[in-house]
């Protein structure tokens, strides 16, 4: 502009007589310069990769506009209308995008480099990391972007449905309730089937840290999920080791898979501060189809004059708020991150919920010329659970949920004088149960480690880790004497359960990395020692002289201790277990084409007697990177690899010290007549000195593939797992010190199956991206060579004492259903059993799913992101203990409320509801589990805010299933004699649909 002005002015000065020509020239020039200076040049160029090869299909776009083209087959492009002071963005799948300032150049050539993140994605395996392409075992890594969003109480919920072969079942909808994780099917019979969780290198003990316990006559409830302490917001990635070659490095506890959780570190650079706030509302997904007061009377039920919807009295719309604050930074390899979080999640049943206050710190520093890297991760959390008496095994009078289902809708909630309308102890009033009970569990847990890694010489490193995991939990439950319920009316009950755990870890290992020509060598040798200390004490007080819940807990001397009234009894127990291991691993790579891994771990445990303390767990695996071979067409495949692995892993999850004969005083109890059953001196268990490790042999074959330049990639795995020497509690040959004895059974539990995972980048355009992730797993489970049969799946309800629904036997899958076959009703309304009035197997019908899968679709349009996640389970059957106990004509004729379908059925009122296929249903379902909409605000101008993002998440929005119960993802604990059950639905806390709105701001 200035130039023109100078030009024109000089021209003006020089010759006034050329004014018309000058004017014309000026005008022309100004027009030209106007168009060129107001953002208009053509830019051409060529895009190549780091090898110099042309890159067709690269998106070349003017930043902030939709003006863009793609490079042609020779990598050339020509972009018009480019502002000369603008920026051009070059992007291509699998490559790091580049933004280049035009600076008035008309020819810009660009070299794009491979995106290190994607192709050399790093996976955490035990004691180290490996590039995903070099992993010889079946491992899956999910990062923060793959996590489920919304109200997430514990870490397992983050990965639900995201990884093939990992089946996660929430036992119920209770906030903080138990979660069942199964990797590649169920291998062990008794409890202890969950995978090993390792947080920042510290393996967790896996035991319960909170006391579940008694709720008087309302049944007993399970302990809370021990992983609730970890704030999911602090988790950077979760890596799951599925097959033996990957888990063998954890030997003794790797039989059921290993889940490695890595917490977030500070980002390099000047650092950032993040604050996230969200608020969500939850409501029940589907209410039970119970009769209303008028329908109840019309069907013939007793009319007590009121109109009550008991579900409305018990349920509510619950609000959950979360605050998460973190700040951190780093430079030159040092980093630090501090975070704090508050979760306040209300449950949809009145008075229930969980609060968590957590803080964490993750830092490291390199010293001595960067040879010594010292770091620490600390996680501290205080969780407060407010529970309600929703139990697993209430009898015919039921728990809170049973009372909600069966209470007469014509009963009013309160009497005219304001007191609760409590009809009898057999039919407790659900609103009274909530008002007259209180159950709080307060837990503090600290998990952390200090580690130091020293580089001794080139390639040789030594790392030592000192870890700790301490928790203290206290449950205080009170039931007022004003509550008319079994074992509580007139006397009241208070339960205290305190559990302290103290686990420590010390690990030392050497790693050696070296390249010898074409051969890359990575070796690991180490030692690990872990110590688990546990102490629990419990008290039960009854016969109270007060009825206020707080006084009962805080002035427990109000329990009448005079003669004839059994009042306060105590019990306690404590044990220590140790685990000592030596492990080693060798990774060999030949020209990056052939990779071999060999691992061995020797574990010694105090759970077994001398002679059997140590178990040795080896594994071998190999990967053939076919993509590096010449005969594989690189224009078809972007990645191709074949993996084979074989290994032996172990399981030692059984109670403490069953190999020595031990004696102690048994627990005292207050019986129904308020007298104390004194604990007698007796044997703890029938000692079996020959007890040894349970071992699982696993074979895995996998194929990793990628097509179309990485736009379609995935893997396929076939596995075969055989668990032998099953640790099992069998019946002793009487007479014996105890009716049961733990033995290693020479039976086999076989799981075999197929896992598929696919990732497709369907559209990758300028403003719009569409990506699909899908995974599916097929599993078949069978028990072989088992002598004898073992019953499980206790069914509770009126007239169902001793009833059970599942049986473990040879030739059947685990937890196979064992039921009478129901064939309708006869004229009198009694059930007909065409195949006989006795229980039998049903062609392998079992609660184990045949297929589990998940589907995620991610859309991105400019600043908007939308992701939808579906998960599905197929092939399993569920047994509704709810229907068996409550939804029968007999129950209705006893004056209880039932569902609408019971009224019209031809069942007679005196028909005994024996355990049969009448209550067995298919549990197939597809759920829209997670829907997340995000909007990133453009904060380009402001320096202070680096990003601002709003999000809306819906959880459990839609469910497609034929199951008539509240939710098909259910698993109530119905164990018999320590043998767990699966897939039984009994008064489970209902599921909620949650909408969460939140914002995340980074500074």
């Amino acid at each position, binding site marked *: 502009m200035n130039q023109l002005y100078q030009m024109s002015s000089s021209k003006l000065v020089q010759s006034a007589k050329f004014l018309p020509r000058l004017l014309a020239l000026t005008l022309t020039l100004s027009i030209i310069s106007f168009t060129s200076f107001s953002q208009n040049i053509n830019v051409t160029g060529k895009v190549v990769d780091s090898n110099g090869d042309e890159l067709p299909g690269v998106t070349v776009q003017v930043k902030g506009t939709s003006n863009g083209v793609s490079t042609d087959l020779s990598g050339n492009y020509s972009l018009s209308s480019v502002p000369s002071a603008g920026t051009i963005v070059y992007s291509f799948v699998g490559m790091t995008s580049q933004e280049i300032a035009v600076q008035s150049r008309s020819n810009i050539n660009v070299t794009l480099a491979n995106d290190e993140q994607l192709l050399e994605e790093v996976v955490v395996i035990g004691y180290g990391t490996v590039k995903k392409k070099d992993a010889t075992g079946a491992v899956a890594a999910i990062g923060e972007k793959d996590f489920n969003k919304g109200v997430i109480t514990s870490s397992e919920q983050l990965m639900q449905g995201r990884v093939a072969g990992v089946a996660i079942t929430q036992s119920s909808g209770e906030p903080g309730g138990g979660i069942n994780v199964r990797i590649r099917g169920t291998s062990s019979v008794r409890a202890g089937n969950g995978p090993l969780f390792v947080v920042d290198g510290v393996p967790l003990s896996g035991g319960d840290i909170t006391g579940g316990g008694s709720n008087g006559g309302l049944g007993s409830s399970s302990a809370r999920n021990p992983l609730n302490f970890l704030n999911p917001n602090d988790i950077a990635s979760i890596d799951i080791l599925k097959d033996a070659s990957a888990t063998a490095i954890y030997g003794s506890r790797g039989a059921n898979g290993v889940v490695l959780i890595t917490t977030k570190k500070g980002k390099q650079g000047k650092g950032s501060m993040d604050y996230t706030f969200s608020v969500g509302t939850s409501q029940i997904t589907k209410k039970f189809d119970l009769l209303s007061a008028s329908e109840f009377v019309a069907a013939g039920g007793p009319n007590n004059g009121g109109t009550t919807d008991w579900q409305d009295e018990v349920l509510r719309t619950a609000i959950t708020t979360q605050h998460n604050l973190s700040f951190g930074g780093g430079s030159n390899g040092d980093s630090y991150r501090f975070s704090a979080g508050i979760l306040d999640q209300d449950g949809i049943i009145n008075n229930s919920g969980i609060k968590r206050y957590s803080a964490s710190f993750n830092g490291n520093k390199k010293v001595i010329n960067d040879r010594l890297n010292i770091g620490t991760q600390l996680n501290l959390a205080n969780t407060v659970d407010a529970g309600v008496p929703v139990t697993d095994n209430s009898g015919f009078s039921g728990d809170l949920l049973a009372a909600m289902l069966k209470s007469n809708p014509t009963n009013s909630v309160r009497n005219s004088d304001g007191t609760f309308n409590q009809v009898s102890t057999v039919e407790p009033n659900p609103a009274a149960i909530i008002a007259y009970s209180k159950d709080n569990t307060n837990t503090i847990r600290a998990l952390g480690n200090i580690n130091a890694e*020293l580089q001794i010489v080139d390639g040789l490193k030594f790392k030592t880790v000192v870890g700790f995991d301490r928790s203290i939990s206290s449950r205080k439950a009170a039931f007022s004497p004003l509550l008319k319920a079994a074992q509580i009316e007139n006397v009241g009950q208070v339960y205290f359960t305190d559990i302290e755990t103290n686990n420590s870890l010390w690990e*030392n290992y050497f790693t050696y990395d070296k390249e010898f020509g074409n051969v890359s060598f990575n070796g690991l040798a180490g030692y690990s020692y872990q110590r688990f200390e546990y102490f629990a004490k419990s008290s039960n007080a009854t016969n109270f002289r007060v009825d206020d819940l707080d006084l009962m807990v805080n002035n427990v001397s109000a329990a009448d201790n005079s003669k004839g009234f059994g009042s306060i009894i105590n019990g306690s127990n404590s044990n220590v277990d140790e685990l000592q291991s030596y492990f080693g691993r060798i990774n060999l790579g030949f020209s990056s084409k052939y990779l071999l891994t060999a691992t061995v771990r020797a574990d010694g*445990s105090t759970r077994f007697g001398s002679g059997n303390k140590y178990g040795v767990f080896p594994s071998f695996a190999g990967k053939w990177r076919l993509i590096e071979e010449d005969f594989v067409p690189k224009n078809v495949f972007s990645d191709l690899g074949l993996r084979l692995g074989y290994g032996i892993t172990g399981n030692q999850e059984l109670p403490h010290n069953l190999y020595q004969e031990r004696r102690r005083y048994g627990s005292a109890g207050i019986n129904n007549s308020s007298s104390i059953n004194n604990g007698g001196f007796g044997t703890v268990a029938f000692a079996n000195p020959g007890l040894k490790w349970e071992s699982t042999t696993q074979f895995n074959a996998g194929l990793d593939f990628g097509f179309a330049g990485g736009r379609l990639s995935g893997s396929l795995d076939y596995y075969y797992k055989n668990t032998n020497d099953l640790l099992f509690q069998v019946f002793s040959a*009487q*007479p014996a010190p105890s009716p049961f004895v733990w033995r290693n059974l020479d039976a086999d539990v076989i799981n075999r199956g197929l896992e598929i995972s696919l990732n497709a980048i369907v559209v990758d355009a300028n403003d719009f991206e569409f990506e699909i992730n899908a995974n599916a797993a097929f599993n078949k489970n069978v028990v072989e060579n088992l002598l004898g049969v073992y019953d499980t799946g206790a069914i509770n309800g009126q007239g169902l004492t001793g009833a059970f629904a599942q049986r473990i036997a040879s030739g059947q899958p685990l937890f196979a259903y064992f039921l009478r076959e129901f064939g309708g009703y006869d004229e009198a309304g009694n059930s007909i059993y065409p195949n006989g009035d006795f229980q039998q197997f049903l062609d392998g019908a079992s609660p184990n799913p045949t297929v589990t899968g998940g589907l995620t679709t991610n859309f991105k349009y400019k600043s908007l992101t939308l992701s939808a996640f579906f998960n599905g389970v197929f092939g399993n059957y569920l047994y509704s203990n709810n229907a068996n106990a409550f939804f029968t004509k007999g*129950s209705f004729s006893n004056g209880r409320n039932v569902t609408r379908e019971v009224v019209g059925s031809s069942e007679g009122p005196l028909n005994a509801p024996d355990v049969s296929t009448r209550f067995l249903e298919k549990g197939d379902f597809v759920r829209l589990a997670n829907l997340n909409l995000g909007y990133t605000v453009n904060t380009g101008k402001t320096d202070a805010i680096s990003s601002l993002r709003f999000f809306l998440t819906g959880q459990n929005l839609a469910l497609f299933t034929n199951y008539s119960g509240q939710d098909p993802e259910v698993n109530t604990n119905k164990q018999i004699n320590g043998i767990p059950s699966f897939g039984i639905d009994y008064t489970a806390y209902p599921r909620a649909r949650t909408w969460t709105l939140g914002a995340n701001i980074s500074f």
Partner: protein
Amino acid sequence: MKNLKRISTIALSCFVVSALVSSCTDLIVEEKDSLVVQNSGGGFVAGDAGALLEGIYNGLSFYTDQGNTYSLNQHPSAEMIPPTRGVDWGDNGVWRTLHGHTWDATHTQVLNSWNALNGRSFTCEQILASNPSSSQAAEARALRSMFMAQIMDFWGQVPRRTVDQGVDDLPNVLSRSEAFDFIVSNLEEALPELQPGAPATINSTMTQSAVHALLARLYLNKAVYKSTSPAGPYTFDNADMAQVVAHADAVTAAGFGLDADFFNPFTDQESPERILTTEANGVPRNRWMMTMHYDQGGFPAERDGPWNGFTTLADFYDTFEADDLRRFKDVGSNEGYGGLNKGFLIGQQYREDGSEIVDSRSLKPLQFSRDIPLAGAATEKGIRVIKYHPTDNGIYILLRYSDVYLMKAEALLRSGDNGAALTMINNLRTLRNATALSSLSEDAMFAERGRELYWEAIARTDEIRFGKFNVQYQDVTNTEAYTVLFPIPSIAIASNTNLSQNEGY
């Protein structure tokens, strides 16, 4: 610089190695909440005989349960029936099969009883191997015999594990005849070292009187136990009958006698009848809860309502004369329990204030009926029986003098002394306000035992001895002879190859 580097490297390595070496542990942990008794060479290590013995006595309260051994002794007999009332008491058919004699080897109560009795028998073995004093050893022998006697009575085979047998050893099995000899010889061996015993409110230890009572019962049933065919016919040896009389006389000599008030022994008042009872924790609450109707409750200290389960059969009720004191006793007014009388409850039931009780489910006055179907019974069906009453604070009785008295009378009858037996029976009947009999037959003897000892867990043994067990009545569908023995639980058969299943199962 290089030297410093090398030195620091070596120093660090040394530190590392020493750390590794010092960290190895022998993986033996100290037990903090229990006493380890196994010594390094294997084998049994003595426990505390006194504590173990105390545990057994404390655990005798398991006999108050309405299931387990009580149900096995009562429901197969004609004294008691456990009906299924709609959905209530269905319980997978466990009760119905006991009445109908159609049980099989997977029956829950059979398994529970097997475990309960055998477990206690083994604890006695442990006591005997734990350096007991002579009196402790005698008590343990007596208890072991008592438990084994019940096992022999139910199953006809008795397994025995010695304390040095471990997890992989299979217990030996005694046949019925061998078991009988073992049991009796142990009782006789224990006799001299025990306390004599005398009537008391609580008699919860084994005394000579208790052993005499057990021996009387064993000799009376010896013909059954020694018979080659378990269902009979039985030939009763006069020498055995003489033994019964002798042991019965020994009990009488210790001071026990008949109580003039039939229901008095079941209270907490003094009575000459109680030979062996549970400890104070043996509250017989289950005995009234199992039979009372849901709406008969409402006691201040109770936590839940009664269970409305078992009743008796009309035919059994009819064996009583109308004025027999054992049939009915009006208790007058009792705070909170008035209206609940003792004996057999039939017809309209009343509350303490005299008002009629109304069935809260049918909304009709609560009247216990004579008829009682096995399945599909309405809630008010069946005649109820109250022997232990909620207000009485009684302790559960395991052995009673009336039983011993009647055993002596039966022994006299079977050995031919009809006159003496008749005198004894008429003495009892006079006490109980029943008319005297003119002659005594076996059937009359059986009926008298039933009238005196109803619902006291002895009915099955009596029916088998008198040959009345395999008779069709009500809903008894299986009258085969083999049912006089219960099946060994299938789980037990699988656990011990020395056991062979009883015939017929």
